[in-house]
């Protein structure tokens, strides 16, 4: 099993590094002022947004045990806190964990 785990770790990191590596290869030919760059910029932000929305709406693991309405409620509340604290990232993140733990242990 031990060597198995090591092989799995290698395969995982290889599959991850591949996209990063190919990204650098492509970057050598793309100017930051080009249309191509702007397109990839849009793709990067939209893909990230899709990933995050998926994590919140169709989560894997422990978040799946919380009701969707609770997840949406916590997210909305934290965005409001983010703006109220002049875009401080520490408050909303800490607050989210506390409020969600409280809701799940008392409701």
């Amino acid at each position, binding site marked *: 099993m031990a060597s198995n785990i090591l092989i799995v770790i290698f395969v995982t990191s290889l*599959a991850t590094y591949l996209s990063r590596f190919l990204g*650098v290869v492509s970057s050598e030919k793309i100017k930051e002022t080009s249309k191509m760059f702007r397109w990839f910029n849009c793709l990067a932000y939209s*893909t990230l*947004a899709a990933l995050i929305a998926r994590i919140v709406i169709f989560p894997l693991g422990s978040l799946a045990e919380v009701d969707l309405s609770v997840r949406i409620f916590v997210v909305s509340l934290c965005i409001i806190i983010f703006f109220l604290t002049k875009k401080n*990232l520490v408050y909303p*993140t*800490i607050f989210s*964990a506390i409020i969600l733990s409280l809701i799940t242990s008392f409701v």
Partner: protein
Amino acid sequence: MISSKYFLKGFSAIKGVGSPAIALGASFIAIGALLKNLGFTIQQSIFSTFLTYALPGSLVMAESMLIGASLINIFLAVWLVNARLYPMTVALMPLLMHRDQPRWKYYLSCHFIAVSSWLIMKDNYENIEKENRIDFWIGIGVATWSVAIFSTIIGYVASDFFNKDILIGLAIINPIYFICMMVGAMKTFQISLSVILGATLGPIFYFLSAEWCILFGGFTAGTIAFLIGEKNGK
């Protein structure tokens, strides 16, 4: 080699009100606990974060191992979930490229590309002269990567103390951090549209394919946002 002034400037991005340390820490603590439950040794867990350093990839690895997937299937599943790193790299590296800087810095430091480090760099690159951006980036990368590795160790060691409620609390921190960072990044019409369309189409495409929804949804949303943005002069 690497300018220590800009390296340290980048490294200090983990301090202060915009710090990713809590979000990164929380999620890698959860990963550390998860890997321990999967039967990893502490060395293997550290090694995993050290070499992969991309959260969704590690989660997919863990799930695949639980169901006993083959190596090929693990490779494909991880590649699929981390393929977003390709557009992210292409949207970042041209901003850091400078002819006076050696190529190896780019090929080595691309390992640090993950959601939090990427968002921090995108938020700060304009304040650094182009020639020094790669060293600044390596500073951000080493800082966030170290937090991830350190947190994996904490999570592994402390896993026995985590109950279900604590794990749920840890799991929400990272998405909240990402959402706030993304909302903060919506400074141009084109980017805002990319984010809003991506967040809408991603989950909609989930009903077509759970595996491909992020790539299909992201690609469609980003392309539409790009075309509309170009037409309206960004």
